[in-house]
């Protein structure tokens, strides 16, 4: 049993690197903007399905991924605009958008799933060898994740990024200090879901197919990954906050793989992951007592 887990470590690692985009996409609205967003459940498959549709139609992988990111960005700003202009709770707005995206994905692909041949992918465009060896995939994915992390840290340390953090840190202060909070929230949601869509586009190229159900449960997995990562890395600095979802994703998917190899039933996973998220989010509140809960609210 353990041998099965050990054999799966590299494959799980490659997967978790791709899914770390989702954990990042959850972190940005949840932690930076203090406004939780569920759009990821839709923007991740949107990126995958868009990429599959245009790749099989003959578009080059780079433009395909750019298109996927744009699609995710659009999904994110839709949620933000619905939340702000229709005064609908951000979570509900995200569910609405994610639900609508499901139909869009079916339309885009014309069928519930679509296979993508290896020679159409970005992996192949870089080197035909990559898809053949798991470690070369891991190296490439790690380099990409590293670049995104560095880029995001640099962004958070820029003037614009600092203003974005202010919007989440103090909603009353931001307009008084000249920050257009609506615009920043909208762009922040767009950015996050663009990242999630990029993750979707990459996973489709790596596994060789897209499926309209590929986003199912992705949000809770990403949230669990984020929470684990923050427990390990912390979030005291902006570097830690950006690295935490990556580390969390890597650890979380190995834990899941370990659980499955030791006899855990796959269909029980969602219950367990959900319970885990509940406990980690709820436990601090229960132990801190009522006073702390209301002060934090």
């Amino acid at each position: 049993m353990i041998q099965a887990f050990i054999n799966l470590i590299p494959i799980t690692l490659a997967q978790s690197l791709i899914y770390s985009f989702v954990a990042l996409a959850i972190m940005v609205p949840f932690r930076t903007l203090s406004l939780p967003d569920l759009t990821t459940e839709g923007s991740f498959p949107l990126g995958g399905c868009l990429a599959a549709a245009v790749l099989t139609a003959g578009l080059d992988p780079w433009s395909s991924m750019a298109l996927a990111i744009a699609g995710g960005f659009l999904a994110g700003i839709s949620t933000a605009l619905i939340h702000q202009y229709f005064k609908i709770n951000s979570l509900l707005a995200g569910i609405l958008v994610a639900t609508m995206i499901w139909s869009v994905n079916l339309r885009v692909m014309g069928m519930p799933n679509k296979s993508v041949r290896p020679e159409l992918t970005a992996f192949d465009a870089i080197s035909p060898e990559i898809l053949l060896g798991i470690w070369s995939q891991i190296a490439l994915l790690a380099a990409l994740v590293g670049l995104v992390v560095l880029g995001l840290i640099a962004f958070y340390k820029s003037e614009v990024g600092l203003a974005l953090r202010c919007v989440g840190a103090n909603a009353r202060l931001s307009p008084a200090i000249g920050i257009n909070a609506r615009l920043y929230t909208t762009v922040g949601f767009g950015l996050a879901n663009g990242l999630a869509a990029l993750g979707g586009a990459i996973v489709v190229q790596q596994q060789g197919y897209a499926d309209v159900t590929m986003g199912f449960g992705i949000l809770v997995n990403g949230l669990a990954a984020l929470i684990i990562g923050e427990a390990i890395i912390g979030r005291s600095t902006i570097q830690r906050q950006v690295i935490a979802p990556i580390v969390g994703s890597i650890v979380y998917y190995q834990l899941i793989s370990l659980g499955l190899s030791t006899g855990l039933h796959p269909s029980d996973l969602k219950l367990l992951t959900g319970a885990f998220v509940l406990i980690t989010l709820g436990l601090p509140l229960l132990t801190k007592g009522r006073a702390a809960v209301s002060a934090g609210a």
Partner: protein
Amino acid sequence: MIVATGLHKVFNAGTASEKIAIAGLDLKVDTGQFVAIIGGNGAGKSTLLNLLGGAFLPDRGRIDIDAVDVTQMREHARAALVARVFQDPMVGTAPTLTVQENMTLALMRSEGRRLRPALTAARRERFKQALSVLRLGLENRLDTRAGELSGGQRQALSLAMATLCPPKLLLLDEHTAALDPRTSEYVMEATVSMVTHGKLTTMMVTHNMQHALSYASRIIMMDAGRIVADIGSDEIGGLTVGDLVARFRIKDDRMVLST
């Protein structure tokens, strides 16, 4: 010069809880003037400041700042001209950001934001200078999160942030009221020194009559959304808190008579 003409602001118009907060208010404030605004609870003082700062738009009337019509300008855009210190020390700073990051945000209030590094050595020096004036040692705590500062320190930081780039109008809404008496005096003195140094046009709401008398160059009293008394600097000199209370029969349950 700040000019407000015929300002009206009604809350919950057309409902049972309709409240006329500002009822046809005209006001001219000369550049460099330090105006104290006094008046009972619900007189409309905070609403006036919110209208000037752009947090609410007036139902009627017009606001000009140095001959620019800002009536319809949204709060974040108006922030290039107007800076505020709030009553609640929690509101004036971003608690999860460091002192330096908060000061950087204040710097960008008038300069705008771009995709370039926010924290630079030159800015750090500038912030150290600006904060050392407060003599609270904040200049040595640039990397401390604002949330870890005491209420008084945070309020002092808010003040430093509001005055870092001299605004055309500085709004202070009972900004020392949430502090203990000693800290309150300290922040008030820091305010006066910054306002005098920068020759800032300032409007300060206060329930502390002594503060109004000692520091302001003009005192405005509000009641029911209007200005009911306007005392210039020539008159203030001879007044005591007792005179002020007797003369305007002030019924202000939060008024602070002694210092």
